[in-house]
């Protein structure tokens, strides 16, 4: 998907460069034809190099997925043989499990708040770093670093220490007269600390935004400047539309990512989702059902529901993309 987003962007500049020139653009020329035998041999080599990945996918992804689908229709408890119970797990989930709905609601809140903040930050910082200046490389690395540490337990532990009662944030705010107490210990703030943790790791989308910004042709800015467009106008009329494929890419990726958020909530709440279930993200509840309540069948069913919801949402985002994602070269 990265690839296609970038080829679209590159393709854009290609076509705009060659649009005035005579003859077809280079990209449209037919691929060089190879002798059939040679091609087949080439394929063999390709499969040889792919084989570790294929083996890995089959053994570690597809196999477990099939197993999990089966287990979602059983009462598997981790230790004894599973019994087939049909759709009971799904029925309980939607019918009688209040915590399931609560976890779904907490996750929805989390996704709705954290994704826009994270993408907004990533875009803002990318715009700042896009200008050539001394030490740009250093700043880029510095902003990217938190993403590398992203899913690690140590960062989440540090986060808990920062935001707990008597922690740095608590004391800092108290010093300027704002007495909120520790954030992670209060139901109304605890989820916000997780949002902050996610937003702080904006490095990965930022790097992708930066790459996208580099692809925006300078001529467009020059043309816009000649037409008298100011900074804001240029951002709205040139940067955003040209960047929209990259925004779509980042939006899809970060949304999927946010639905799967687990480590932060797990560590900050010691695996409980507290205080008062305020950080009970869906994956955390899934984990609890599987590993502390020994209801692995139920947990498998929850995983499939999550997969379905994420798939539907992604499809919806893609469908909406027709309205707002602009690929240069399209006629509108």
């Amino acid at each position: 998907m990265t690839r296609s987003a970038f080829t679209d962007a590159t393709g854009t500049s290609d076509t705009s460069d060659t649009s005035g020139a005579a003859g077809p653009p280079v990209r449209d020329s037919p691929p060089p034809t190879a002798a059939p035998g040679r091609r087949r041999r080439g394929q063999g080599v390709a499969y040889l190099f792919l084989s570790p990945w294929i083996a890995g996918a089959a053994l570690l992804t597809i196999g477990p997925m099939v197993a999990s689908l089966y287990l979602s229709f059983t009462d598997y408890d981790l230790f004894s043989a599973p019994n087939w119970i049909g759709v009971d797990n799904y029925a309980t989930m939607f019918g009688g499990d209040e915590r399931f709905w609560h976890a779904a609601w907490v996750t929805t809140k989390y996704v709705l708040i954290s994704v826009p903040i994270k993408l907004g930050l990533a875009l803002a910082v990318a715009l700042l770093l896009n200008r050539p200046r001394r030490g740009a490389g250093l700043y880029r690395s510095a902003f990217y670093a938190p993403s590398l540490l992203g899913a690690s337990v140590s960062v989440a532990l540090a986060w808990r220490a920062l935001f707990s009662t008597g922690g740095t944030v608590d004391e800092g705010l108290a010093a300027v007269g704002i007495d909120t107490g520790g954030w992670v210990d209060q139901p109304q703030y605890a989820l916000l600390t997780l949002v902050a943790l996610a937003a702080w790791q904006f490095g990965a989308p930022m790097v992708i935004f930066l790459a996208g910004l580099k692809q925006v042709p300078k001529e467009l800015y020059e043309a816009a400047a000649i037409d008298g467009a100011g900074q804001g106008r240029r951002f709205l009329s040139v940067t955003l539309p040209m960047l929209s494929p990259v925004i779509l890419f980042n939006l899809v990726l970060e949304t999927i990512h946010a639905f799967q958020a687990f480590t932060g909530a797990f560590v900050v709440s010691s695996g409980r989702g507290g205080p008062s279930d305020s950080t009970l993200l869906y994956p955390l509840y899934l984990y609890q059902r599987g590993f502390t309540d020994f209801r692995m069948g139920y947990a498998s069913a929850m995983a499939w529901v999550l997969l379905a919801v994420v798939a539907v949402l992604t499809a919806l985002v893609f469908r909406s993309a027709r309205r707002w994602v602009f690929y240069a070269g399209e006629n509108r």
Partner: protein
Amino acid sequence: MGRVSRRGPAGLLVSLVSLAAVLSGCGGGDSGDGPVTLRFVWWGNEDRAKVTEAAVDAFRAKNPGIEVETEYSGYDAYFQKLSTQVAGGAGPDLLQLDRATIGEYAGRNVLADLGPYLGGALKVDKIPANLLEGGKVDGRQHAVAAGATTQMLIYVPSQFRAAGVTAPSAPGETWTWAQFTEAMNRIGAAGAVAGTTDFGWAIDWFEVWLHQHDKSLYTPDGELGFTADDLAEYWELIGTMRAGRGVSAAEVTTKMDGSVQNSGIVTGQTASEVGYDSSVTGYFGAFGPDLALAPLPSDAEESGMAALPPVSFGVAQRSKNKDAAVKLLDFLLNDPEAGELLGASRGVPPNEEVRARVCAGATGGSKAVCDYEVAQQDRIGPAFGAWPTGSSAVKRDFQRTYDDVIFDRVSVADAAKRVVQDAEQSLGS
């Protein structure tokens, strides 16, 4: 998708490496004749780890044919790892359990029946019958108590004195719930710290209160032994203390997990705490020697307190070295040297002979525990019996619902109803 494919090779590498590690791990130690390797796991603090390692070393010295690998962690992390390992077939041979998990694991056929070993390789004749009872599920001995413990209030005498409060300590001295409430509120009003850590979160202390009212947490058939009204009454009682800072604030209480490092006393937020005397050595290690023990309050003749196995040891059903594991278990329970080394790190030793010897020479935290057990001897009732399958979910839901109570998200009556409903569901499965 881009992210996934970028992670692919690295993820695969990690999986392969761990797969290789698992495979090589399976290769060693299973052979019948050669040296046997046992895995022994427990949870606890460093204080407990140090003495347990020392006892295992003593075992190794006496049994050169048996190698023992040990592993320990905090309570939550312990069970997270354990269930995954057992499910994956890489479980330990000898493992530590508590009351909620014995029923859970025995009910799901994770624990071996120790019956065939009793009296032979595993001597239990010096262990009181009521302690042994705690390791029985469905009439079979699935685990043996690693110690004996009793509920207690541990407190900081200097803070009690500063507020002009005295706790009963001599044999026969008691206090009522009204006296206790008044004392805690007085400490809270004195300003420095709250009177006691809010103890409404743990179902264990509710169990004591139930026994004071001739009720119990679970019936012998594994059903719920109390009603929503009982629980509401109990939580209301604690609520009267919360208003006057007699118990800790919600933000403090929500962090409680029974571990010493998170305890209100150790973090300097409360002057006392309800707990099991098996963790007293841990408190002394983390806080210092300025600590004393008092019995829990009761309005009835019955103190509600019981001699319980704080933790028990069980042997895994899937262990390939059950004989060696039982040998280690017997050593930990009955060997005088092991008893000496272990001290009161899991409550007082379960073996009465070992206990007498350990208590005679005890110092510090171990001495405090021995003294307390002697002082309360006449008021400590028989053991409560093992908790049924599903009880670990009940224990967790109890705490979660109490969070809602202390943060004022639900009324006590509704919360109590929810606990009972959730529990009925968990016990049914």
